[in-house]
């Protein structure tokens, strides 16, 4: 048993739903109790989908348990096939149905349906949502893909994007444009908007683009082994990664691959003088492994940030993320316990967080700006405008995303110069955020925890009143760092007290 207040990933069958909902002509018959239908709203509300997920729930109740839940499953499956007329169905159990062991796969097999029936075994008590999506897509591909001749001209499949993915819709459009620009046509995009017939045709392509490793890697590995289709390992998020991706495609296809970079603005935006204020900003990165890896590179190499924390919630990516963190001189945080993430963020006292909706919330509590770069998603992560993350336009979008939460360059200076101005003070937050500006002072009093004030002092150094007062004059976005640096400085020198002089000596010591 493990106590959880908030989870980064849903259960495995929600992963399967993300695949089913992304597809057309496929239906999911899910053996599940009443109440599990809540998952529909993830798609209809968060993603604003205009149709119900293609899922039939058996919705058994207590009174069914004594009698015959198996026949309930069979009649639900029969009704679903008749009503929705799918090309194929996937069948499985949610966590409770797994316990009653009705064996949906075996039951569906005995029904003699004349369409492919794909059974799913998704262990609800040991695995999570991403595994569920990855495994479901793999099983669908394994069952439906048909060996066939390659297309005459060079084509590829784009594999991995599901419903409820992070900017899946726009990523597909952007990567399609990029590949076509390179002279490569798209054979199939899956599971997003794919039919079972499309899945059957996957082996006609020359190679696969694995756009989201979390949900498409098992299928890509199987296609490589069985149908001899290589797949791309670089996820083209960020300028450097996009260029590496293009090089990888050139290597796979033997095509010259000269991309059109005329719309790529991000490098100049990073180099222009206004961006000086970004240099050395300390950022903490947490999310799914793929996005964390991409953003670590963007943060350090393309924005000039200093990365002070790296971690991911999906254990499947623990190994690459640990290796990556080492490369940045850090220890990776691999956990799905958001309280541990909050502790780590508080310890690192970054100036900005690149995270998920949960880290945005943590940032709000700690008064640290946060840009959302990874699932789990919220209604805000489905913008109406075109907003890809991959390719060159994706890099442009990410630049905007990363600077939006921050206080702007000149504003930052003015805040430092006129610390006591009653209107123009740091607690008012970035001027372009209106009502959403963080209010650290209030936050502290209403949470009753006084987070910042009781932050454990190293070696119990005491802050003298003058120094404490001066510390409060330092803008909130660097205050945490100033406190930590000063305490570390004092501790190193064996000082028991921090005076105004100590504060400024520390400032000079850490000047950069």
């Amino acid at each position, binding site marked *: *048993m*493990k*106590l*959880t*207040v*908030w*989870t980064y*990933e*849903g*259960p495995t*069958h*929600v992963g399967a739903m993300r695949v089913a909902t992304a597809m057309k002509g496929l239906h999911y018959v899910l053996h599940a*109790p*009443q*109440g*599990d*239908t*809540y*998952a*529909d*709203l*993830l798609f*209809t*509300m968060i993603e*604003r*989908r*205009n*149709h*119900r997920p293609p899922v*039939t*729930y*058996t*919705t*058994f*109740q*207590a009174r*069914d*348990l004594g009698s015959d839940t198996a026949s309930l499953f069979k009649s*639900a499956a029969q*009704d679903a096939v008749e*009503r929705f007329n799918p090309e194929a169905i996937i069948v499985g159990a*949610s*966590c*409770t149905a797994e*316990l*009653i062991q009705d064996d949906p796969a075996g039951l569906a097999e005995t029904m003699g349906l004349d369409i492919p029936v794909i059974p799913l075994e998704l*262990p*609800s*008590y*040991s695995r*999570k949502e991403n595994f569920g999506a990855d495994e479901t897509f793999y099983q669908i591909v394994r069952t439906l893909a048909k060996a066939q001749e390659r297309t005459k001209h060079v084509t590829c499949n784009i594999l991995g994007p599901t419903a409820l993915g992070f900017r899946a819709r726009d990523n597909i459009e952007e990567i399609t444009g990029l590949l076509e620009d390179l002279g490569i046509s798209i054979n199939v995009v899956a599971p997003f908007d794919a039919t079972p017939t499309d899945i059957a045709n996957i082996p006609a392509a020359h190679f696969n683009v694995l756009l989201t490793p979390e949900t498409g890697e098992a299928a890509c590995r199987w296609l490589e082994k069985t149908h001899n289709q290589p797949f791309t390992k670089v996820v083209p998020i960020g300028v450097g990664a996009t260029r590496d991706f293009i090089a990888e495609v050139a290597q796979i296809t033997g095509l010259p691959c000269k991309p059109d970079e005329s719309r790529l603005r991000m490098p100049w935006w990073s180099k222009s003088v206004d961006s000086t204020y970004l240099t050395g900003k300390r950022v903490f990165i947490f999310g799914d492994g793929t996005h964390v890896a991409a953003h670590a590179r963007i943060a350090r190499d393309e924005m000039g940030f200093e990365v002070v924390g790296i971690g991911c919630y999906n254990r499947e990516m623990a190994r690459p993320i640990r290796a990556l963190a080492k490369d940045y001189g850090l220890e990776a945080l691999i956990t799905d316990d958001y309280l541990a993430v909050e502790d780590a963020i508080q310890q690192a006292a970054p100036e900005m967080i690149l995270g998920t*909706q*949960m880290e945005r*919330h943590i940032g709000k*509590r700690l008064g640290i700006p946060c840009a959302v770069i990874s699932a789990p998603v*919220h*209604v805000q992560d489905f913008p109406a405008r075109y907003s890809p993350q991959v390719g060159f336009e994706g890099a442009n979008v990410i630049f905007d995303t990363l600077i939006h939460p921050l206080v702007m360059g000149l504003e930052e200076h003015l805040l430092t110069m006129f610390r006591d101005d009653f209107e123009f003070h740091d607690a008012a937050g970035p001027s372009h955020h209106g009502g959403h500006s963080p209010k650290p002072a209030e936050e502290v009093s209403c*949470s009753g925890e006084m987070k910042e004030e009781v932050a454990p002092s190293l070696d119990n150094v005491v802050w003298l009143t003058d120094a404490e007062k001066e510390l409060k004059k330092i803008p909130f976005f660097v205050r945490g760092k100033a406190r930590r640096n000063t305490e570390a400085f004092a501790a190193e020198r064996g000082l028991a007290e921090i005076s105004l002089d100590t504060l400024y000596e520390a400032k000079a010591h850490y000047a950069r």
Partner: protein
Amino acid sequence: MNLPLPPTNGGCRTAPVLKERGQREVFCGLTGIIWLHRKMQDAFFLVVGSRTCAHLLQSAAGVMIFAEPRFGTAILEETDLAGMADAHQELDREVARLLERRPDIRQLFLVGSCPSEVIKIDLARAAERLTQVHAPHVRVLNYSGSGIETTFTQGEDACLASMVPVLKDTTARELLLVGALPDVVEDQMIDLLTKMGIDNIRLLPARRIDDTTAVGPNTVFALTQPFLGDTHAELERRGARHLAAPFPFGDEGTTAWLRTIAHEFGVSEEVFEQVTTAPRARARKAIAQAAEALNGKSVFFFPDSQLEIPLARFLTRECGMTAIEVGSPYIHDALHGPDLDLLPAGPQISEGQDVDKQLARARAARPDLTVCGLGLANPLEAEGLSTKWAIELVFTPVHFYEQAGDLAGLFSRPLRRKQALQLEAAE
């Protein structure tokens, strides 16, 4: 006595009920935790369940809005299922850790889920044991919020019903008001009754455990929510008597509900009028404004919270709407009868759900407004049907006079929006 008159064409109490069972597009009872944990400020709700339960709770209400919610899920893992770990020891450990972290918690609810019930973890026994360990500071109770036992608002019913047996005994003549209401609404309700001279009022749930809610043979109780069937039964078991009335939605419902209590406590007609005239007039005025958009329109209710019957009564009698179908997950005559008496005959009354069949009926009827759950709303909007998400009716203050206009407004807004949006090119 201007009691509401039953409709001239007869009411719906004896109308045939279409009973369906099939796929149900409803939440399970765990969802009630979202509002219960805000209502009872010293309570913590610990769901013993799966990752699905935790995911439901955070999804159903966009739960990230709460800094530190007073609920959590003890997620069962493989070791718990394989019997490798003793579920009770595990639970004791998690509860001890939780209570240590949250010394402000005075009552803890162990909430059963589908998986905990299927593998038969005895939470009643656990609650007894944990009460002994953590008494007197913390009281531990248990109830089921599982989908196999409860539908959406039945979770609150199960929670309140679990509290009735531990209420103190009393022989005092008291009025017990039952159902979780937003504080502002609760204050208005108490104020109205106090002005009538009724002051021996108790609340279930009370905001804090130290409050002195008690029950006994001289207790009379009124329900403020139409989904409290089990709590009703538990209170009768303790000797309390139910004051059946239409539920306090809209001017008419609120007046009838108050009048039933006033009658019981011998409040004079004069005092009753004096207390209710001004807020009644305000309610009528506010309803009239919002009802302009509703008048003459048709409404179709999918089953969701058991609020459907009283709300259909309000919309048909006070807002000029016509009900096509009124679906409720469950219908209890003792609770819903007074509202069914007033609901003009005509609509199909349905209990339970087979969602695809019901969707087919809604599409055929093409109602002006469809009241349904979050999973159905956008798909129906995309088909051109205006919808009202039912869950908002549970999360918004809608009871009594001062909220009557807001209640009508919840239904009129989707229709006004449809009118307001002009997205086509000008000719």
